[in-house]
């Protein structure tokens, strides 16, 4: 069993959109905080700063649900030109493993909670 997970391997949700605007313009809308706030509000993010950026191509934010259970996830926006002069806009959302750094108790009753969900 391999425990190594490739960066893209646990993508949970991938959605692709075609936008009319050119990539440079989309890039500004996604990365300039005042513009980003107008379509992706701070209240939906765990932090207003991107987690990582590849200029012009890719930016990654950490999302937080605005109501309980406040689950966090990473979202990557990939921007590339499409054939129509617009932008192919890809949303890749992955869950965060919040238990990654914690030892797991052998007598955990998480499964019981799962059953009740």
């Amino acid at each position, binding site marked *: *069993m*391999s425990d190594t*997970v490739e960066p893209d*391997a*646990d993508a*949970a*949700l991938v*959605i692709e*959109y075609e*936008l*009319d*605007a050119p990539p440079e*313009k*989309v890039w*500004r*809308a*996604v990365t300039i905080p005042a*513009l980003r706030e*107008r*379509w*992706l509000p701070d209240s939906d993010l765990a932090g207003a700063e991107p987690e990582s950026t590849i200029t012009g191509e890719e930016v990654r934010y950490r999302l937080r*649900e605005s109501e*309980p*259970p*406040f*689950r966090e996830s990473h979202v990557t926006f990939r921007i590339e030109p499409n054939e129509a002069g617009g932008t192919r*806009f890809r*949303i890749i*959302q*992955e*869950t*965060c*493993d*919040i*238990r990654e750094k914690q030892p797991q108790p052998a007598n955990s009753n*998480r*499964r*019981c*909670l*799962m*059953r*009740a*969900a």
Partner: protein
Amino acid sequence: MGRREGEFGKQPHAKDPSAATPRSTAPGQLVLARYISVCLCAGMVDTDIFKALADPTRRKVFEKLAGGSLNASALRDGLEISQPAMSQHLAVLRSAGLVREQRQGRFVNYEVDPDGIASIGTWLARYRAYWPKRIEALSDLLKDMDQ
């Protein structure tokens, strides 16, 4: 939700909200805190599911089971994987609540656990509904922006 809260409710609580002294937490806050902790547990289970399905072999196993229940050797057919490795993968899928086993005498069959699927569905449904609204707002913004 009701059942989960019930399970927590069974545990004896040092600070019984009904017997709250002026200095202790307000009953409303206590109830809210309990609600949040219960939901965080449910959130961790969701994470387990995605971790379990992050492995390509486990995804294949899970997909095979989606076609109907199978025993361990039928599951291994077509997959280059040892019997101990298969048991490990099945254990991970089971602890994530994605797969359950059915014993019939000496034989064990594995099948998809409907509760696990429901949990994936909830998370995906939430964000499937979320992104179209955000993209609509982004498109409006792009129209408003100068070149």
